[in-house]
């Protein structure tokens, strides 16, 4: 981010960086930066809070009028409480999943969850007017079936989108599956928090169990793209560390 600011400014494009990691801003000193106290993934503060988002933008654009010498670094002070944790009591999964059948295949349990969540996913899509799922090019049923095949002796060897490498399709399918759950989960009543949603996905759903199983199962996969995504981009470090301890 700071490098882009240097490159663009050298080409006579004025820039303002929103800084999420103050130590990186201090080390790479882009010309103008507004450090914000928000979590990674939320540079403008909080979803569905236009007043806060606008106050960040106003503070960022104001740096363009600062007559001081560059680098100019300011801090955005927010009195809003913006932890990812939120209030755990305010949210719960909008559906009760079918009870686990002993010995039931993982893919069948994911299928049951997806069926249960589908009305809430559709409700969320309608209320937001969009969905962030679908980068893999697979519909949701094809997504979890295709991913599950990596756990079998008939693991996929070609990408469903022929123009994309197998490893990238694998990563996109995993993100699509997760996004489906998170969009459905946040469409229900109650105010959802990032921590509650992510904790629910990784610790309480068969889909989370599937991705964790793939991480382990594919750590030595022959395809370097699949192997690398399985090892490093499938399960958050925080969740992987939690499971190790």
């Amino acid at each position: 981010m700071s490098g882009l600011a240097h490159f663009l400014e050298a080409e006579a494009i004025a820039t303002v960086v929103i800084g999420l990691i103050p130590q990186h801003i201090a080390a790479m000193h882009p010309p103008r930066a507004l450090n914000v106290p928000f979590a990674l993934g939320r540079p403008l503060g909080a979803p569905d809070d236009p007043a806060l988002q606008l106050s960040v933008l106003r503070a960022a654009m104001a740096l363009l009028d600062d007559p001081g010498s560059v680098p100019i670094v300011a801090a955005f002070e927010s009195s809003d409480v913006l932890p990812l944790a939120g209030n755990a009591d305010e949210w719960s999964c909008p559906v009760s999943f079918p009870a686990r059948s002993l010995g039931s295949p993982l893919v069948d349990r994911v299928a049951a969850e997806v069926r249960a969540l589908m009305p809430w996913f559709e409700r969320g899509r309608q209320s937001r007017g969009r969905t962030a799922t679908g980068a893999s090019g697979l519909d949701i049923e094809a997504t979890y079936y295709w991913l599950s095949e990596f756990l079998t002796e008939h693991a996929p060897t070609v990408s469903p989108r022929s123009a994309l490498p197998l490893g990238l399709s694998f990563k996109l399918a995993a993100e699509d599956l997760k996004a489906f759950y998170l969009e459905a989960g946040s469409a229900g009543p109650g105010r959802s928090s990032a921590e509650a949603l992510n904790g629910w996905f990784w610790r309480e759903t068969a889909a989370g169990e599937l991705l964790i199983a793939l991480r382990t199962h594919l750590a030595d996969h022959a395809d370097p793209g699949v192997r690398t995504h399985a090892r490093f981009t499938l399960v958050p470090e925080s969740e992987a560390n939690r499971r190790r301890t």
Partner: protein
Amino acid sequence: MRAEDVPETLLNLPCPDFGAPSRADPGPVSERRVAIVSTAGLMQRGDTPFDFGAADYRIIDAESDADLLMTHVSTNFDRTGFLQDTEVVFPLGGLRQLATEGLIGSVARFHYAFMGATDPTALEPAARQLARNLQGEGTNVVLLVPV
């Protein structure tokens, strides 16, 4: 993030030395045409997703109805905010509001996205090309938004 909350893994990432910063003139407020440049790995549905090491960018047409998707490779940041409200990562509506308030001149039609996990020095050729695109579109200010 607050400085004290930044995890060790991020503090240990190499930070290249880009030298003393240049200072471009943003011009008077009424003539500032602003584009967003994101490093969230954003793309519009139908475009090509980002993968490891991607050093190119995607164009985001503000006049298109195509959904905005996130194909950043990292899984170590929150995505629930983006899933609920794209403005938390890509504040196009917010910039339009600033334009109506007269705090900027206008909002560009075309915006851009890189994938921020790539070595920042590798982005230079694409960034220089991007600057020419921006100039050709009359854009003279960029809001750089990380993820």
